[in-house]
């Protein structure tokens, strides 16, 4: 009797409990670069442990070592009191370590069952897999149709596939890499319920996130990494989002400042009943989109990834030509059938989501990349070409220098290859290249996706400054924090429909969340409360 109470009590008493997984002074070097420097981390059964840090702080390196995808240079990983070497992800899964990746490793043309079956060890590939998926997903409030093709599923449903796949293996430790980055607020709540239920069953969770509010809400412990080192281990419940951010960045993050906009500018970008059918079954149809963006304001389009943002950007920028010239007008000029350069000549500028490969050519130098989006537009400055086909290298270099200076683009040399820049610096370059033109209309998709806090603050401030100088800016973003920081008005895109726009000051996250899931009728988010919070 007494012994059983002891064992029950053991996991909850902090100091004496044996950690499920302990990482002891683990380091990882790539050549001279130290990605992880003597990291200590301890995970307990039944607890959700947050791993925080900026991009490049070493979070994913650490997680990959725990999941067996990388081997530590030095140090030990101890699983249930036993030091061992996790050679590969299969060995990690064997131990009971499951991982849900940020970018899912799913096959779009295969069914849910097929996708799960491919990732299971042989002994779990039973003939009744389909029923087990159905019952497990029901049980945990993660509704999934086992026979559906992944192509047809929303991002939230795709994440459920990965989670169900992990659950089928009855994990002891579940690693989640930025799981809510792709979810609506309501879907995120459902996920939290599932995680809480798992921890009550004794599973440990290692939770990587940028979203400090949800870390505060969900996690029992937190470890913060900066430049590959542990800078703090603390209880997130006792901290504020601001203090957590301070630990992550090292200094307090520069606050973005914004004055209210007057709402008196002229309409600079107008969409009237814009329709665009997707040309592949993987795409999203844009249906009857109406929108007006005025000079001097920032309009933000919120939405969960894959609801037509990419398609909307392409049709706005002219990469996809619309059938109706009048569906899009820039500065009063009907331009639905114009190409991208013709639209740039109307003083519009476009920054795509994917900086590497879409916004910039990785193998080209920075000056050459400047030429790529600027060759057809002079905008009152000197043209970048000489005569019929010559390139004015000197002028290009001076534009590049001023972009680098104004937008703090740091590179090994002033004219480095674009691919050699870090994500944040390349994004500053790609944004700066367009802003330097002082465009009258700017369309920007995911302006700070995967960018560290410092670069993000700089880019956001630059966008606000441009709009207050009288430009119309359309920001497409999945990041609600960013949207509330930037936007004067907000509209929400969902399954190719765009909601009416509302003043940002009159909207809450919940309102946006409801609009985000409005068109998604396949699975109601009921029956999820059973997990208990």
């Amino acid at each position, binding site marked *: 009797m007494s012994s059983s109470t002891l064992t029950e009590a053991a996991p909850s008493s902090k100091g004496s409990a044996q950690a499920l997984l302990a990482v002891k002074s683990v380091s990882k070097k790539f050549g001279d670069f130290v990605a992880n420097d003597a990291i200590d981390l301890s995970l307990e059964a039944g607890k959700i442990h947050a791993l925080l840090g900026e991009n490049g702080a070493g979070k994913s390196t650490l997680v990959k070592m725990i999941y067996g995808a990388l081997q530590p240079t030095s140090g030990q990983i101890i699983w249930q009191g036993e030091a061992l070497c996790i050679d*590969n*992800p*299969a060995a990690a899964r064997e131990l009971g370590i499951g991982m849900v990746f940020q970018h899912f*490793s*799913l*096959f*779009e*043309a*295969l069914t849910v069952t*097929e996708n799960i*079956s*491919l*990732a299971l060890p042989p002994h779990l*590939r039973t003939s009744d897999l389909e029923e087990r998926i159905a019952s497990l997903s029901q049980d945990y409030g993660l509704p999934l149709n086992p026979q559906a*093709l992944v*192509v047809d599923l929303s991002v939230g449903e795709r994440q459920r596939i990965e989670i169900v796949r992990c659950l089928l293996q009855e994990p002891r430790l579940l690693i989640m890499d930025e799981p809510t980055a792709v979810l609506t607020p309501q879907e995120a709540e459902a996920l939290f319920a599932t995680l809480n239920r798992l921890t009550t069953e004794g599973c440990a969770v290692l939770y990587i996130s940028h979203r400090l509010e949800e870390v505060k809400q969900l996690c029992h412990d937190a470890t913060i990494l900066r430049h590959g080192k542990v800078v703090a281990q603390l209880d997130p419940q006792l901290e504020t989002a601001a203090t957590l951010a301070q630990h992550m960045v090292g200094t307090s993050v520069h606050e973005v400042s914004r004055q209210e906009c007057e709402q008196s500018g002229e309409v600079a970008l107008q969409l009237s009943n814009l329709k665009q059918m997707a040309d*592949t*079954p*993987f795409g999203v149809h844009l249906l009857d989109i109406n929108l007006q963006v005025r000079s001097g304001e920032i309009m933000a389009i919120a939405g969960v990834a894959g609801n037509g943002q990419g398609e909307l950007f392409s049709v706005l920028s002219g990469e996809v030509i619309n059938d109706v010239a009048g569906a899009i007008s820039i500065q009063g000029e009907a331009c639905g059938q114009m190409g991208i350069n013709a639209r740039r000549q109307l003083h519009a500028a476009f920054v795509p989501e994917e900086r590497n490969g879409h916004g910039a050519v990785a193998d080209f130098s920075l000056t050459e990349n400047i030429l790529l989006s600027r060759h057809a537009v002079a905008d009152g400055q000197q043209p970048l070409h000489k005569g019929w086909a010559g390139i004015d290298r000197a002028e290009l270099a001076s534009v590049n220098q001023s972009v680098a200076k104004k937008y703090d683009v740091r590179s090994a040399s002033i004219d480095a290859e674009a691919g050699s820049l870090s994500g944040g610096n390349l994004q500053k370059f790609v944004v700066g290249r367009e802003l330097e033109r002082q465009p009258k209309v700017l369309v920007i998709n995911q302006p700070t996706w995967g960018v560290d806090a410092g670069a993000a603050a700089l880019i956001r401030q630059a966008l606000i400054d441009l709009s207050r100088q009288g430009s119309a800016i359309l920001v497409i973003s999945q990041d609600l924090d960013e949207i509330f920081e930037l936007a004067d008005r907000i509209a929400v895109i969902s399954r190719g429909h765009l909601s009416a726009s509302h003043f940002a000051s009159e909207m809450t996250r919940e309102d946006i969340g409801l609009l985000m899931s409005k068109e998604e009728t396949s699975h109601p988010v009921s029956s999820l409360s059973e997990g208990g919070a």
Partner: protein
Amino acid sequence: MSAYEAILLTIITASTPLLLAAIGELVVERSGVLNLGLEGMMVMGAVCGFAMAQVTGSPWLGVLMAMLAGIAMSMLFAFLTQTLVTNQVATGLSITLLGLGLSGLIGSGFVGMPGIKLEYISIPVLSDLPVVGKLVFGQDPLVYISILLVLGVSYMLKRTRMGLIIRAVGQNHDSAHALGYSVIKVRYACIAFGGMTSGLAGAYLSLVYTPQWIENMTAGRGWIALALVVFSTWLPGRLAAGAYLFGGVWILGLYAQGMGVGIPSQLLSSLPYLATILALIVISTNRRLSVINTPASLGQGFVPDR
């Protein structure tokens, strides 16, 4: 044998080499590899099969040799494109050129020799049935093998774990690799299968269809087989339908010419191509189905990141 039966029989014999070559290429492409060396592997199969049958006197050893020759050529392709990660289009084209040249060299001593024909299988009683007898039960063995291959591949791709892995590798080789499947090994195996069936297709030409060796005797059938694979949207059933349609229109054109129908012969000989393209265009109007079956990483080399 009635004229009607004779026509149907020739249609099947004309279609079978296309079907054999194409079913292998279908598997290769499902795994994400584009092998344009089909013509070269076929013609090597034809010459090696013929030579082996001449030397040993056994057409069956010829068939075996043809398959080995096809596999050998395909392994050269696999080594270049999978291990050395060369461009698949350029490598495939050079395999075709190599095969055409090399087969001329190997076959130079066999030109004009009377060939040894593979025996027909004639199931007693059943093959004497009226109408369907000869057609269904009196074909040469390779016809049955080709049909079994189509059924087998169809079942394998749809219903077995092996097929699932092949489709996964062809869909997204990075994810397949991340899940622990060996992309390169799976592709090697599929390429070898493709080499084997195109060798068989070559053997069909030189040991059944016209039992002799003529230089360049594949006469572009490898390219037609390649086109059939794409137009069939990588589905074995449609592939078989396309192959028989092509053979059918071709043979009917020949008969029409023989009977002196007043259509220019050039038009008649282009009919099978037109008919196949039209039919398959109609079939592939279901874009959703075709995009879903299209191997997304077709033709892309894979370099594991570790």
